[in-house]
């Protein structure tokens, strides 16, 4: 819903072994309501970049503008979904978890319950509003996390490999669900993944990063019509192109 500008963002990690570059001179413009995936091998700084956008890490130089305003620290204009299922509050029901951000905003009980129910319906969990997280499967817990991040209506949704810990079948369902949610809510989404097929399925554009230090190698637009068909020739061509940028031999089949 709002554009994001990433201007020459650099971050250096101070480790006992010396300074390790995290990300270097990242430049990227993301349009309003755009779905951008960031792919790259482990250690390429894709999660670091996401954490900088989220405001959990401060860049050494450069800046990030969301809707023209410089990011400093975290804020409720961004919703965040992590990979770890444990991100949910175990002492709150699914509904209670989704209500949390609304509570922080000071929204009255009745209204926030109505909003939270609506968000849970959006992720198809209306039957599980009063379940505690430990009674839900991994995929359901991640759906609660998505509903929770959307409930207080941030303009940007940041997702850090949210489906990486799920089994392949559940992951496919979740990708379809997320594509639907995005179509309905029109959030600006930045989605970090190391799964090329996932990136092609979800993204308007895919940012390919390379490690040591983390830089943007290239940006690949995915022009396929939605909903996308993962078994189509065009889909596989996009995957091949991304794999080529990532330095994989495309004569081998990618699972």
């Amino acid at each position, binding site marked *: 819903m709002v554009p994001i500008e990433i201007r020459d963002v650099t971050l250096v990690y101070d480790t006992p072994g010396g300074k390790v570059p995290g990300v270097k001179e990242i430049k990227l413009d993301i349009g309003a309501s755009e779905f951008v995936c960031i792919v790259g091998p482990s250690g390429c700084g894709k999660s670091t970049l996401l954490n900088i956008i989220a405001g959990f890490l401060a860049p050494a130089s450069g800046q990030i503008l969301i809707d023209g305003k410089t990011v400093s620290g975290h804020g409720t204009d961004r919703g*965040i979904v992590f990979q770890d299922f444990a991100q949910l509050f175990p*002492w709150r029901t699914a509904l209670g978890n989704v209500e949390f*951000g609304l509570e922080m905003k000071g929204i009255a009980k009745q209204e926030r319950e109505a909003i939270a129910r609506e968000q849970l319906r959006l992720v198809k969990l209306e039957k599980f509003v009063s379940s505690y997280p430990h*009674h839900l499967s991994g995929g359901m817990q991640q759906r609660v996390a998505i509903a929770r991040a959307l409930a*207080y209506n941030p303009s940007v949704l940041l997702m850090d490999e949210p489906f990486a810990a799920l089994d392949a079948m559940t992951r496919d369902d979740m990708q379809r669900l997320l594509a639907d949610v995005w179509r309905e809510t029109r959030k600006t989404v930045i989605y970090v993944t190391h799964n090329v097929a996932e990136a092609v399925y979800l993204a308007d554009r895919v940012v390919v990063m390379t490690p040591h230090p983390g830089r943007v190698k290239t940006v690949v637009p995915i022009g396929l019509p939605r909903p996308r068909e993962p078994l189509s020739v065009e889909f596989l061509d996009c995957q091949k192109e991304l794999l080529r940028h990532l330095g994989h031999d495309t004569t081998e089949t990618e699972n």
Partner: protein
Amino acid sequence: MSALTERGKSKRSLVRAIITLTAAAAFYEGISYSGLFPQVLLPTIQTIAVTLYSMLADGSMFEHAAYTLYRVLFGFSLAIIVGLPLGILMARFKHVENFFLPLVSALMPIPSFALVPLFMLWFGIGNLTTILIVLYAATFPMLFNTWSGVRAVNPLWLRAAGAMGADEQRLFWKVIIPGAAPFIITGMRQAFLRAWIAVVGAEMIAASDWGLGWVIFDSKEFLQTDVMMASIVVIGFIGFVFERLVFGSLERFTVLRWGMVRAAKG
């Protein structure tokens, strides 16, 4: 169906407990009747039961227990009021930890009984001294467990809550306290246990006329081992009730229900 098997399990565990207790009682009764020791020193269970019944019937046992409970609950509550916030502050703010940790480490190993004579000189005989001894005994387990619990709070919860706009105060009430709940409940259990042990000891020397500790110590003068035994039974019973019913229920309605701790298998 699962409720039935649950009930079946708890019934079986009750039967097992009864078997153990009956065997222990029979062993005791056997020694008491054997004449190995004078019966005045080792009264039979029958004698103890009669004494206990009469002390319950005339209300004196209730009064002793009430005094002891008043002291223990007063001191225990103060220990929570002191230990819980201090433990949280120590875990959240480095300078608070730097200041208090050496003090806590130095004071914690001192047995509360070692302070009873000193407290008697300072505060006299009676409720104040016993309550303060209880406070001393219960504060450290409360503080230490809370401190550990807050440090063990999943950083993802803090990140998620921060991203959703939680300020420090709401982070405290809505994330840190429930997030540290398994440790806090363990802290309360240990604190109560220590408090219960301390109160009986403190009453023996620093209380007068009432209290379960006092009545045990006083009975020594009159060789009333049956009164001593009856009081010990009551002490054990009250401790058991608190441990199982109060803290057990607290655990069942919170951290067990939330899946933050799991019941043992089998």
